[in-house]
């Protein structure tokens, strides 16, 4: 059996205790939430911390609640709860859909929303065993100096592969982090940096405690589209979340689309809303706008051969999935995926 490297586990019960443990020795200490990403990565020796700090006993990090109009989800809330919670379905359909398409049933039960947000980036040259990576001569992201995605590349382009991140970004989610200095709130958009080695601006020793979806002034529709080979288990080969704000007459007043699994960070499709704003759902203008928005996505999204699969095909699927996801959102349907 593929073994885990040796480490010790700490089981704090409060945020303060957790934060104190995390500040001990940076690098040698890591957070374990659901463990569904960390455990395989540790079996691959991508991480070899001496100590794991488990959040499983920190009760303050669990649960979904409304707070002053905002929807607040504890970082340790399992993905299957996010996917099936009536409040999430009502207030954030794209998020419910995305959470429901992460991996398979057991992993959605174990994996957490916070864990999915903080997911390590993925690459076909990286998510492999130590033996495999050693035979390759390692790579830029871990233990090596060469990039095998872009020959001669000096910047890691491992792909953000978290299904929920684009959904959360489309809803302007804010994250609360705790560390020894206290708490701070951050717009999810501001979490990311375009570096596949570690694509977050917040250090790994900071603890994500909750995810906050602000109250929206206007009614919105949302959906998530996920390209993958199988109907279950797989990470996204391309993912896109769409939000369409409408007025009482079904006229689009704003729209956003956020993509994932292309590059190191989830990215907003720029000027996406412009093609749709002002059109009425279902009208010929709207349909035209959908086409224009899809083409825009095709121009902006440039998949690289970082995750498995034919990257040119992934590129060709950007407008198709974008279009289908917009139409699903408009119809109050979704998610868009192959099965």
């Amino acid at each position, binding site marked *: *059996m*593929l*073994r885990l490297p*040796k480490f010790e586990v700490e089981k704090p019960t409060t945020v303060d205790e957790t934060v104190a443990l995390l500040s001990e020795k940076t690098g040698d200490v890591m957070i374990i939430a659901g463990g569904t990403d960390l455990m395989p990565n540790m079996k691959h020796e991508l991480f070899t911390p001496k100590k794991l700090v488990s959040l499983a006993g920190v009760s303050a990090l669990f649960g979904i609640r409304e707070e002053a109009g905002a929807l607040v989800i504890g970082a340790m809330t399992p993905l299957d709860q996010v996917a099936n919670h009536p409040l999430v379905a009502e207030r954030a359909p794209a998020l419910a859909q995305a959470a429901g398409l992460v991996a*398979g049933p057991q992993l959605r039960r174990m994996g957490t929303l916070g864990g999915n947000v903080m997911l390590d980036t993925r690459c*076909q040259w990286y*998510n*492999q*065993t130590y*033996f*495999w990576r*050693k*035979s*390759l001569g390692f790579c830029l992201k871990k233990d090596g100096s060469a990039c095998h995605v872009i020959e001669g590349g000096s910047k890691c382009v491992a792909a953000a592969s978290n299904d929920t991140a684009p959904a959360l970004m489309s809803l302007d989610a804010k994250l609360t982090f705790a560390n020894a200095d206290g708490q701070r709130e951050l717009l999810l958009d501001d979490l990311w940096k375009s570096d596949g080695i570690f694509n977050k601006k917040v250090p790994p020793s900071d603890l994500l405690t909750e995810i906050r979806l602000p109250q929206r002034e206007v009614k919105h529709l949302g959906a998530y589209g996920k390209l993958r*080979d*199988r*109907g*279950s*288990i*797989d*990470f996204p080969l391309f993912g896109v979340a769409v939000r369409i704000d409408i007025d009482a007459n079904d006229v689009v007043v704003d729209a956003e689309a956020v993509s994932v699994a292309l590059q190191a960070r989830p990215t907003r499709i720029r000027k996406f809303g412009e093609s749709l704003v002002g059109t009425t759902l279902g009208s010929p203008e709207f349909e035209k706008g959908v086409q224009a928005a899809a083409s825009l996505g095709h121009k902006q999204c440039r998949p690289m051969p970082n995750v*498995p699969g*034919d990257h*040119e*095909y992934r590129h*060709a*699927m950007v407008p*198709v999935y974008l279009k289908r996801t917009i139409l699903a959102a408009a119809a109050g349907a979704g998610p868009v995926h*192959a*099965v």
Partner: protein
Amino acid sequence: MSARDNHGTAPPWGDEFQVIGKRHRKVDGLAKATGQAVYTDDIALPGMLHAKTLRSPHAHARILSIDTTRAEALPGVHAVITGASMPIKYGVIPWTPDENALATDRVRFIGDEVAAVAAVDEDTANAAIELIDVEYEPLYSYTDPNESLERHDPAIHEGNKHGNVSKHVELEFGDVEGALDGADVVVENDFFFHGSTHTAIEPHCAVAQWSQDTSAEGLLTVWSSTQISHYVHRALARVLELPETRIRVIQPNLGGAFGGKSDPFSLEFCVAKLSMLTGRPVKMLWTREEIFYAHRGRHPMHMHYRSGATSDGKLVGSDAKILIDGGSYSSFGLVTTYYSGQLLTGPVDIPNYRFNSTRVFTNKPPCGPKRGHGSVQPRFAFEIQLDELACALDIDPIDFRRKNWQGEHTKTVNGQRITSNGFMTCLDEAERESQWKERRGKLADGRGLGVAGSMYISGTNYPIYPNDMPQAGIQIKVDRSGLVTIFTGGNDIGQGSNSVVAYLVAEELGVEVADVRVVAADTDLCPVDLGAYSSRVTFMVGNAAIDAARKLRKQVVESVAKHWEIAEAGIRMGGGVVLDLADAERTMGVREAFQLAEADHDTLGSTGSYNTPELGGDYRGGTIGASPAYSFTAHVAEVTVDRETGRITCDEVWVAHDCGRALNPMLVAGQMEGSVYMGVAEALLEEHDVNRFGLHSGPSLLDYRIPTTLDTPKINSLIVESVDPEGPYGAKEAGEGPLHSVIPAISNAVYDAVGIRLRHLPFTPAKVLRALAELESDQTVEQS
């Protein structure tokens, strides 16, 4: 064929079968359901050490030196072995022994085994592996089989007379050129069948325990997740230089195989050697990654086919040229090379046929036998060509196959004897159940139906190593308790072979299936059987079981007849009860009947065996592919092609399979469904390959994508029973045949759906989109 082998197809008692043909639980089903069934990795022996393998990071290299000093010095390490510990080469085919348990002087693919360590636990063994220092001289490595065909320096196997060519076979039957010259339509295309692998969910595992007994050599017991204990037994004796009497091989419950556990593997030799060196039991459990390196999966084949027919719809000939990518070792490759040509000659008659097949070595994980060994690939190409010919001649593709059916009790063009042949019924069933006539050509855009057919062997008369002994043997013990115990060397790999012998013996002896125990796949306890491959078990072991049971039945009936003072013909046995046909009041339990027999005949026991009759064409290689009976299959596949995404969804499959007689229709259906699932997966999802560095492109169950519940079509199993004159009660195989033609059926359905011919596997959405774009541009050109 000797008389002992043919027991007829009739029920042994009266006009009806009592056990056979009905749904029964498997003999080991509830043990598996409750978690009690013991698989190899479930074995834990006192003081057991754990072993790990050091593997080559190079695709092709010479080993200059290996230094194990640092590893040996690590506390907790008990032994370190290298190729020097076991220098004798082996190979499952005795003519091509080119493998070493651990590399002696050269490594041939990334993942090739170099050294092994036994230590107190897995972590220590893993740490020790990292402390072995190996100096390599990298050599030029081959990934393209075309290159291996042309370039022989360096040779992957030094000393091979044919450079990097592993095997070449050229056979012609009839006059192919003449026939094709006279054809009204000829189709000619290139095809590619990609590599795929078995991915049984149970990882390979072996445990060895060496014990000092009264002999000088001691006794070595090896528990292994093998599907052929007998060949493991032979190979261990050869490599370890031990008499076969000093080795006992036991196959515990096996978690799937599909051909992937047919070869003797490095881990079996390593645990054995390490146990002998340390005097401790040793276990080695491979990781999922290591199983991808062990591979022995489907050979990639580059195929060129040319087939012709006359305008009245008669196939006149087919010509095949095939380049087979064998990977780094021979494995079953000699057989694969023959099978790539030999197994195509039914159920459609090919009056003139030629094939030219070459297997080459490349620096990739070794290929071998995967479900439908050697013949799934050519079947794919040929059945698409049949579809093309039918289209060109404007004949319904099912009718085209009917017109060219070879018939039953006949001979193929390459001299193989065909007995029962239910292919026409298969076509009828698949046609009717899929509503082919009503629906084909009338489905919405993007949806289509396709058909294809195939045949497969029920065992082969080629026993891997030449000998005149039985291919299958059975022993039965019956005693005064009423219990029947069957000893079989056959390997139950999940297909239910232990259950099948229990059903057959229960039928013959008139006992309840629950009162039959099966002891299997233990070389100390069971008679020799050649194992679970080539779809031989039901046919051969089944015949041996009937053979043994019938001898016992005779003794029991004789004793009861004597006791009741009636004629033997007046006795019926069934369900654990013996009846006097003339006197409904007179019955006795089988327990009592067995006691009468035991008193009359002394301790009760019998043996039975099976060997094939003389078969095969009268030419070199003519016996390879010769089977005592062939199964036949027809598939209709229904697909939906998404023109925007290029994604093919196989919605539903109708599989009609002639299994001779369904001994337990539930198990037959399970084999058919599993076969279809695996074929659909090969067509649409799976690909076993290496990347540009020669590294496996994704050795995990995340990246090698086998279908989930959500990716598997609705499968309709249509069992056809032709009742074979030589099968056990008429049975033939059901475990491999039903895979073959689903793949071309999907390709043909895609043509029906959107007008593109997919000749290169797998049918990825990207390929579909390219083909659709080409079709559109062709049509634009035609219109302009």
